[in-house]
């Protein structure tokens, strides 16, 4: 049986407006979703499970509210879920520290394949996959757009700034998932019902017994800011010819961008 681990996170919906108060991101009245890139990971795991004998475990390091995202993943077809409660971590942890927590969690399970989104739509640093693979001493491939499993190997295609690479690696391997890999399904009512009965364990960071030194951040956020407000744009007027002439003049003589 193939053991698949999926690391996922709950994030704001991509349509949300970001508000800052007291140097913190405001979370009230926000719609939360599974990080869209992690959704491709969950979906791919479920697709593999539909093709062959596999068990899918989804894991999140996050606050208690992340439980809803994990239940959605279970409703999509994952078998078990684990939430490592980030509120038990004591402080805001950076990618370095979080990777050690995720690695400790991964080591609790047998795995042949680890999937996670290429990046999150909030932090967006795309470090989790490669860091986790390094700590687990397994190879990784980022931004995969196609996955095939054959004879203990993963044969994948990945997106590299518009070009496509075909890569082969023996399992176990960690793959980060990119848009274009699949179309994540909406959980069905039946799926949602089943999800309620599937196991969802909640662990504290202490339960993972990670060396305290390894879960200390090496970087920290010192300030948050919204983008500088741009001066309002101008919709040009007049005949089309006049507008075109005006635009060309603005770009060449005023803005000096051409």
């Amino acid at each position: 049986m193939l053991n698949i681990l999926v690391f996922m996170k709950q994030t704001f919906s991509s349509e949300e407006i970001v508000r800052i108060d007291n140097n913190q991101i405001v979370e009230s009245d926000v719609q939360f979703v599974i990080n869209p890139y992690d959704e491709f990971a969950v979906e791919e795991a479920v697709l593999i499970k539909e093709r062959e004998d596999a068990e899918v475990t989804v894991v999140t390091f996050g606050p208690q509210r992340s439980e809803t995202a994990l239940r959605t993943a279970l409703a999509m077809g994952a078998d078990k879920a684990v939430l490592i409660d980030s509120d038990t971590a004591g402080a805001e942890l950076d990618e370095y520290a979080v990777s050690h927590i995720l690695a400790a969690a991964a080591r609790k399970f047998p795995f042949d394949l680890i999937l996670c989104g290429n990046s999150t739509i909030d932090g967006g640093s795309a470090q989790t996959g490669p860091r986790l693979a390094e700590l687990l001493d397994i190879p990784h491939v980022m931004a995969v757009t196609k996955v095939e499993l054959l004879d203990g190997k993963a044969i994948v295609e990945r997106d590299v700034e518009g070009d496509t690479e075909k890569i082969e690696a023996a399992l176990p391997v960690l793959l980060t998932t990119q848009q274009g890999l699949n179309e994540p399904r909406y959980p069905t009512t039946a799926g949602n019902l089943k999800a309620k009965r599937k196991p969802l364990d909640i662990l504290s960071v202490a339960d993972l017994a990670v060396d305290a030194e390894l879960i200390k951040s090496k970087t920290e956020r010192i300030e948050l800011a919204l983008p500088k407000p741009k001066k309002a744009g101008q919709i040009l007027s007049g005949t089309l010819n006049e507008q075109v002439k005006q635009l060309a003049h603005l770009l060449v003589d005023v803005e000096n961008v051409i």
Partner: protein
Amino acid sequence: MKKVLVFAEVKDGKLRNVSLEAVAAAKRAYAGCEIIGAVFGDGDLKPFAETLAHHGADRVFLVLNPALKSYTTDAYTQAFMNLVAEVQPDAILMGHTAIGKDLAPKAAARLRLGLISDCVDLKSEGGEIVLTRPIYAGKAFEKRKVTDGMLFATIRSNNFKLDPAHIDTGRRANIIELRPEIKQLRTILKEVVRKTSGAIDLTEAKIIVSGGRGVKSEQGFKVLYELAEVIGAGVGASRGACDAKFCDYSMQIGQTGKVVTPDLYIACGISGAIQHLAGMSNSRIIVAINTDPEAPIFKVADYGIVGDLFEVVPLLTEEFRAILGNRRD
């Protein structure tokens, strides 16, 4: 004296601009530091070392091994660890490119370092280096600093401007060859399908003309290419245009496509969905051409024309042809 190691990338036979921008960023942030460039590959890499020297590198390592001809994580990581042991840097910088996104976090994990990714600004503030990076797809920005260990950061293309005054073609650097041993590679690169060779690298383009669903067909892109040719622009697309098969995904700009920071972005027939804005909202000047005056793109555009791109764009092309033609004379 602080040593700043800059990993420089070569693509299509040229040093990528972002690597030169990393050298420039290092010089500005670390006054009086020693800048050590590094180029990985096989064969004669001396011309790249010379260019790095012109831009400010004091020493350049040419890291050579046949396994480094094409990027694989394992080969580059082993060579990189070798290089870091040799150089003993105080800081490491590289571009936030496909290679940077792959190599930097892996190396950071192995070196037990933090990593600050996709920076758009790097400043010395009160004796500390403070980096600025976008979060929530550019809807907010955070300032970060290192609290333990050395600084390791990747920088976004086109955000650290090169100052031509600081480029000295008479400048020389010490060039050192490093030949690391590279063992067992766990991923095998079977094939590369190039879709972008010959095209302007959108992440480095100063001007981009971009088409969305409003382009209506593959042939529709022709008018954009004509404009692009006259003004020296790269041509990009929204995800919508790619999904509709009007163009290849290699042209896609957006949250999942390329993130670009040109001086001028001309969005033609693009509605302005959040995922697209995430890829271009930091452009210096945004122009929108769309038949729908309510299209969200007009909210971020500096200048907008409500109209049919098939009428507007050819007129623009003619106008620029005339202006730029006169300028040449």
